């Protein structure tokens, strides 16, 4: 069975966003000398990244006519 590139990319992005969302629970990161902790940006952007990943998965799916 051949898995499409869209699907692999989609699942990788979904996995990445899920892992990223849980990082702030274990590690209060502050990359560089920024005023806001990086976890704020991770929480704001990870659902958006998840959305991109799911869109890729949906585009990899065929929608056969009934």
């Amino acid at each position: 069975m051949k898995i499409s590139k869209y699907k692999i990319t989609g699942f990788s992005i979904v996995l990445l966003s899920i892992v990223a969302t849980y990082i702030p629970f274990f590690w209060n990161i502050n990359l560089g000398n920024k005023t806001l902790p990086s976890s704020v940006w991770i929480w704001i952007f990870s659902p958006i990244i998840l959305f991109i990943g799911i869109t890729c998965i949906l585009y990899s799916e065929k929608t056969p006519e009934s």
Partner: protein
Amino acid sequence: MTLGITGFVWLVLYLALLLFVIIFANKKSKSDEQTSLLSKRQEFYNAKSSPLGNFALIFTFAATLFSAFFMVGLPGFLYTHGLGTWPYVIFGDVLGMLGLFYVGRRILLIRTKETLSPLEIILPTTFSKILFVVVTTVFILPYLAVQISGFGRLINAASDGAISVFVAAASGLAIMYMYSAYIGIRGIVLTDTIQGVVLFLCACLIGGYITFFQFDGPSDLLLTVYSKTPDLLGSPGPKGFFTFGALISGCILFASIPMSQPQFLTRYLIINPKNDLKYLRTIAIGFGVLLAVASLAILPIGLGGAVLYPNLESGDALIGTILSNFDSTAGRWISGLFVVGVLAAAMSTVDSILFSLGQFFAIDIYGKLVNKQVDEFNTIFTGRIFIFGVAVIALFLGVSNSNLIVYLSSLSFQGTLQLVPAVIGGLWKIPVKSHYTASISILVGVTFLFIFQYINPLSDLNLSPAIPAFILSSLVYLVSWTLHKRS
């Protein structure tokens, strides 16, 4: 918070628009042989032939999820628990896109022209259908009642007590009953579109107003929040709510909605499989975009509110306080629109649930148990009576404001999560011979949901009691199926 002149103008405009759409939908349904309340003719909705097309379908799925909680509860939740609310709510909603697409596609593929209700193709026995309807009613009816009492109270407060809670709730329900029962799903789809647009605009306008008029943009807002109440931007939040387990629980509960809630299951049947199957992906993506953008717009309301009004008694008082302090002309217009937005949010949820429950009772209980020979005319008639019955019961439950109803409504999504194994198994034809698998799985899930409210085996992980109950109901489904397969 009072309605004021601006709110009154918005309300009149909203009701006029709703009336126009209802008349348009009614006229169209009379001239269109393909439209009726509860039949295979629900295929009326042909995206290719309608200028609204995908736009209306996207909005009807999104609007049915936007409840009054979205406009009032979510800013309050952000105010109390901070930024973690955003991934808590939106992660599950975005994952719900997958549920919407795969469950929708499966229903469209296996349905036949004779399919009147989604339960016909999901559940194998009359008993399992009855059980599904009973469980749905127990968990969804209180949620419906709370929404109805919510908009009754809103109008009561906005009219300075001139309109009583009962009269406001009953009037709103009467409007919804008329277009749900007599125009059917077409009326609901079209009114949902208006309600969705109003809601979306409301969230964006208020969020934008706070971000750019009361702060100097998103960065300034976040920096101010961080300097004054840093706990709001970190985990586990000021009250310790956002733990690892809480986020997983929220994700599973919200993601399950398109697979278990009756208003979603009935909506899949309105998509015409011959023309619209390829649009399902667009609908799923549009659904995700709407929810994500609207939720993102709510962020500054809750977080900004925490900085502007830090000493409120509870988060529920936030939105009223913010709107009362909008003293500019633009602010007053936005404030008036908000009242209409909450009304639209409650209406779009209530009408869909009313219709779905009425449909389940008429087709899956009355048509299968009481009168198996019922024809289409009588099914529609029965459906209208059931929708009326559900509306009246929900009205009295909502106005009674009993603790039991409030408690059951808080368990709403947890209860319907226990139906997911039966829905997925039924749609992918897992119970080939095991007719009781679905019923046993639902019974185990719901029973243990109540038991785990008191003794949650996964409380150390901060997981909701619904999660272990859901794991058990899924295991029971798989074990029961395996045993039947072997025998």
